[in-house]
């Protein structure tokens, strides 16, 4: 690493944001460092200064009014072990468990996962299907951005150099929802996803689908919602044929690339397979609970 990189670990959010107020990009925020440190090692990231947010008490997970509020500094392990999330958003815990391995999960944070904005960000799809919002704090200002509007490209988001992502908010849902997450990787741990999918829906009093959400990762420049596929689910009775048709629609809403992990064609096919399987599994799990 570049020996000239300086380091600062402020103890209050105000202090941190004040420092960033003059940031033109030479200061990078660091939390767990599981992505930033390797990139600094390879020369892909060359910040002049690191601003460590670990002392800013941004790691709580709590219920506040109608929202679950997850501090951006909460590690993947904290998410896995959160009793609150096991009640209100169990899918998030299951997804966190599929990230890397224990040593990475003990340091990597949900905020980091989102800000790094890899198209393969594991936590993005489960947060997207839960209509998550992110809180971007800057000196004397704060804005709330729906996660669906947060990502703008591979590794790019709407966050500015002066902002810190401080919190992720998930609206608490009163209805029972069917959810499922599937990650396709090249091995069973420590793997970046080839394709992953997350779905969520509930059933109204007539047994028809309502509030459907489908989110997909590693198949577009950013994690995406398959909006047309979601619309096609609304108001319909769940069933194999519907799920197959909807999955076909989902594969029209993505634009995967070919890389060392998989070809675009394979990814496209897997969008269909994973969406279909997610919907089927979500529905069958739902039926067991109801």
């Amino acid at each position: 690493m570049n020996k000239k990189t300086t380091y600062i670990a402020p103890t209050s959010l105000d202090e941190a944001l004040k420092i960033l107020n003059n940031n033109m990009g030479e200061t990078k925020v660091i939390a767990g460092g599981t992505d930033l440190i390797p990139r600094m090692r390879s020369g892909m990231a060359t910040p002049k200064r690191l601003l460590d947010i670990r002392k800013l008490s941004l790691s709580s997970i709590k219920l506040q009014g109608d929202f679950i509020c997850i501090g951006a500094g909460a590690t993947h392990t904290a998410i896995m072990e959160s009793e609150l999330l096991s009640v209100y958003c169990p899918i998030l815990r299951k997804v966190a468990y599929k990230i890397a391995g224990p040593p990475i999960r003990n340091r990597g944070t949900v905020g980091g996962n989102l800000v790094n904005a890899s198209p393969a960000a594991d936590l993005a799809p489960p947060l997207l299907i839960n209509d998550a919002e992110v809180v971007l704090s800057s000196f004397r200002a704060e804005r709330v951005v729906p996660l669906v509007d947060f990502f703008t490209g591979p590794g790019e988001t709407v966050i500015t150099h002066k902002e810190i992502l401080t919190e992720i908010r998930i609206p608490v849902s009163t209805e029972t929802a069917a959810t499922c997450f599937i990650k396709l990787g090249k091995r069973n741990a420590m793997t970046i996803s080839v394709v992953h999918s997350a779905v969520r829906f509930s059933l109204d009093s007539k047994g028809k689908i309502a509030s459907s959400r489908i989110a997909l990762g590693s198949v577009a420049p950013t994690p995406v919602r398959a909006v047309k596929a979601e619309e096609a689910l609304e108001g319909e009775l769940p069933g194999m044929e519907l799920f197959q048709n909807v999955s076909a629609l989902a594969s029209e809403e993505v634009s995967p690339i070919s890389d060392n992990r998989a070809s675009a064609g394979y990814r496209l096919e897997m969008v269909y397979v994973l969406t279909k399987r997610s919907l089927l599994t979500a529905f069958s799990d739902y039926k067991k609970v109801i």
Partner: protein
Amino acid sequence: MEEIRVNFIVNGKSINLSADPTRTLLSVLRDELELKGAKEACGQGDCGACVVVMNDKAVNSCLVLVGQIDGAEIITVEGLAKQGSFHKLQDHFIEKWAFQCGYCTPGMLMSAYALLLNNPNPTEEEIRASIAGNLCRCTGYNMIVEAIEAFANETAQN
């Protein structure tokens, strides 16, 4: 480069040192404290050979910066024998031939230690998951899992 002063505990011993805050914990352990057990086999968190236990959690010491260790309690493989009955975990590794070249072993032991601190009676799946971030090229893992299981069983009986 401005150095910072950090206070932390390694294997029960208080350490006070001044270092570049962007230096890794791994390099401090190996080069300042002469604790060579943790190894650099990839330098970026892909292999687990540098795993130590910090505040009761397994971490890749190549991804922890000096600026982040103030106040931390760190256990490395050199300090494992003094943690309760964990010297028996080391004995089980020998008894069960849970290493061949041994390069991954310090990291493996520390991941196992972190697991067993919180979960003294793990299932096989849980054991495998706990060392999923520790790559081994020699053993194929099954004998490592058996060593950890044997220790857990022995401890459970006592």
